[in-house]
Structure formats: structure tokens, C-alpha cells
């Protein structure tokens, strides 16, 4: 067992189980509703949703305009809405400007389009270092950017949840929207990677 504060001497899985039992017994949590939520975020909600949004923006100029001006509303057009989907602002990566997303205070993240955040996004080192030395951190994550590319670090919060519209890779002109969606990764929509042609 790890070193914990005095009120948390018991293993955390037992504290969690205890809390769930108490809340269920007191009628404050309906286990069926809870299971439904967990299953939803484990299976139905994830980066494949965001990938559809990006692919549509790449192939439909009018949708792209709407997405860049009213992120949450444009995303809801495709049926993706819900908790943590409010105030999504979509920002475009170009050949000259690269946006990368962080949440310095906690882990604000657009759940309806990306699902729950990966561990690196929640990690204290990522949250602190991406602000101070984004070029170095991106290189460590496998994304070497040219020296003349401007990097803009976008700090998500409950007021603004950023989503990156990555550059459409060259050589994908003949691909369908569905095929394009298959290329878009979570990391590209957070700005820690680029989308590559197949």
C-alpha cells in the first residue's frame, strides 16, 4: 500500500467500494444508471466521434466554417453532445501555426468527441511542461516541428474546451469522408500529433 494521508489509510479500491455501497443503500445512486454511464464512456463515446467531425470539416467547407465559429453547435449537428461538451472551441492547425491542447489546472476535455482523457493528458508533468517548453515536449512525444512553425498552447477550462482541427494530409484528395475519419487520431485532435496519409 502506498503512503496516504491519515483519513485514507485503507486501499483506494476499498474506499471506492465503500462509497458506492453507502450511496446505493441510501438511494442516492442507482447502480443501473451508473453502469450505463460507465459503459457509455468505455465503449460508445470516444475519439471516433471527433474523427467524424474532422473528416466532415475536411470535405464540407460550409460545415468547416460552422465548426470553427460555433464548435459545440456544429458538433451537435452530428449527434455528439452531453456532459463536458459545452463550450467546445475548434482551432485549426496550419502549415505555419500548430495548436496543442493542455489543461493546466485539472483535465478539462471535450468528452462527447474524444471520450475520457488519456493518462498523459492528466499527468502533472505534461500539464506543467507543455506550457513552458511545448516544442521539447512535442518532440518527446514524437512530433518534431520545423523551427519556424509557431506553437500555440491552448489551456482548456470549463469555459473553453479546445479541439484541434488537424491539417488534412496531402495525397488524400480521393478519399471519402468515411475513409478520412479512419485516419484521424485522438492525438492529432489534441495537437500532439499530425494526421498521416495511409
Amino acid at each position: 500500500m502506498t503512503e496516504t494521508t491519515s483519513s485514507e489509510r485503507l486501499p483506494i479500491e476499498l474506499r471506492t467500494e465503500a462509497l458506492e455501497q453507502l450511496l446505493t443503500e441510501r438511494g442516492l445512486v442507482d447502480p443501473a444508471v451508473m453502469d450505463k454511464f460507465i459503459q457509455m464512456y468505455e465503449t460508445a463515446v470516444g475519439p471516433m466521434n471527433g474523427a467524424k467531425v474532422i473528416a466532415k470539416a475536411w470535405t464540407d467547407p460550409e460545415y468547416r466554417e460552422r465548426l470553427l465559429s460555433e464548435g459545440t453547435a456544429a458538433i451537435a449537428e452530428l449527434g455528439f453532445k452531453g456532459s463536458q461538451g459545452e463550450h467546445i472551441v475548434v482551432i485549426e492547425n496550419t502549415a505555419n501555426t500548430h495548436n496543442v491542447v493542455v489543461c493546466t489546472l485539472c483535465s478539462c476535455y471535450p468528452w462527447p468527441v474524444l471520450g475520457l482523457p488519456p493518462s498523459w493528458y492528466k499527468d502533472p508533468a505534461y500539464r506543467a511542461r507543455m506550457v513552458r517548453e511545448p516544442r521539447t515536449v512535442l518532440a518527446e512525444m514524437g512530433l518534431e516541428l520545423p523551427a519556424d512553425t509557431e506553437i500555440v498552447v491552448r489551456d482548456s477550462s470549463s469555459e473553453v474546451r479546445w479541439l484541434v482541427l488537424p491539417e488534412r494530409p496531402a495525397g488524400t484528395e480521393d478519399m471519402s469522408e468515411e475513409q478520412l475519419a479512419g485516419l484521424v487520431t485522438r492525438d492529432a485532435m489534441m495537437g500532439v500529433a499530425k494526421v498521416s496519409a495511409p
Partner: protein
Amino acid sequence: MTASAPLEIAGPAAPPRSNGELVFAEPWESRAFGLAVTLYDAGAFEWSQFQAALIAQIAAWERAHPAGECFSYYGCWLAALESVLAEAGMITSHDIADRAAVLAARPPGHDHDH
């Protein structure tokens, strides 16, 4: 936790992964997540209250930075949930500790349901 069936890594029964990573690293993380989302959905608290508590827990961990202890996001998440529930007078950390102690006293093998 000892012997368990190997995880199927492909096919319809495979656990969900986002870019190769499980959504929840351990089962208790999914329960802690589900409790907060379900309580919020039922109107037990405002999400902003929970988020403020989560920010405070993460900041406290970062200030203290216990030597050798890895950062646990869902550990902070659970502590935030406990503090919001205590503040709302719904459940105290004492209640939780008492029940956890009861659970800890169960004989080994009690939860072999799979």
C-alpha cells in the same frame, strides 16, 4: 489480485482502448468515475463544484508530492467527490472509512465472481 484470464486484445469482447490504452487502468477507477457522473446527473451537485474540488485535490497533491507516490488522477477524483459529498452533508469521510474497514475484514476469496 492474482490469477486472471488473459485479456482479449482484439475482437468484439476486447476491452475498450483509446490509442492502445485502457480507458480505466483499474476497475475502481471506473466506479469512482461513474459515481460522480451519476450523482451529477441526479442533481446531487453542480459540475462546477466538483471541478473546483478536483482542481483543489490535484493542486494539493502537487504541493505535497509525497515521495515515491505516483500521481493518481482518479485518486484525486475520488477525494474530490468525497469532499463535495461531505460539504453537502450527504456522506462523511468517517462513514466511508468505517464501511471500508468492514469491507477490508471480509475473508479472502469473497469476490471471486468471475
